[in-house]
């Protein structure tokens, strides 16, 4: 059974390990400083994946934003977050292939989609990471 609050908090805690990243574990529309990561509420949750309703899956998004005033610097900055094998890699810091979770059985970062994102009237270069989470009743 999925505890979304606990899952979002654990993912935020993993992102907090990335040096210099300002992490929000709610759907904020007020970014005080970049680079920033916003862990949003799930886009959808599928309940009852096994009998008894004990296994749920959720799909949520992590939005990573960097300053856009200098596109060359912004691109290099964002590239560190969307790469793998990099200390700032979102994948390496979040995917359950590399980190253990208490609130979920499986956390899979499936893709990153770079784009320009507007938050409270300000344009940022960023990437939306899709994260699939599977939680069961445990042992």
């Amino acid at each position, binding site marked *: 059974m999925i505890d979304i609050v606990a899952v979002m908090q654990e993912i935020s805690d993993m992102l907090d390990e990335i040096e210099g990243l300002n992490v929000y574990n709610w759907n904020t529309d007020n970014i005080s400083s970049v680079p920033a990561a916003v862990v949003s509420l799930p886009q959808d949750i599928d309940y009852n994946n*096994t*009998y008894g309703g004990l296994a749920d899956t959720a799909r949520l998004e992590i939005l990573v934003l960097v300053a856009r005033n200098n596109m060359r610097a912004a691109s290099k900055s964002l590239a560190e977050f969307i790469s793998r094998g990099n200390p700032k890699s979102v994948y390496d810091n979040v995917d359950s292939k590399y980190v253990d979770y208490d609130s979920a059985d499986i956390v899979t970062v499936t893709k990153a989609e770079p784009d320009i994102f507007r938050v409270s009237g300000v344009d940022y270069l960023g990437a939306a990471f899709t994260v699939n989470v*599977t939680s069961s009743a445990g042992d």
Partner: protein
Amino acid sequence: MAFKHGKATVVTLNGVDYSAFADTTDFDDGVDTHETTTYGRNRKTYLAGLGDGKVSVGGMHSDSVNNPRSLFKPLMAAGTEVQFVYRPEGTGVGKPQSRVNVIVSSYKDSSPVGDVVKWTAELQMTGDLDETPQ
């Protein structure tokens, strides 16, 4: 009269409730038929024979205690006849239940790169089928 959702299903094998790891059960029960058509008939006739059936089950792989792989595979390897219990409406007095001895005839793991590890198994019914309600 009300329809029932499959999410409430309870399934056990050899007394072990593995419902938490299961998401599909096909309880396929049938009876042999033997043709008795003779001259002068316009349609075929049949005689009912022996009953038989198979159960197809499946779900998600887990490393938890009593996970399906650790439950099904040893039984299959040993060829042991064990009881399978299927409760399509869950557990409760008066609710439907099917109980039959089975032999685990196959077990399959599937590991897609983009999805959870899944398992399926086939159970061959052997002997009498008891469908007395709970």
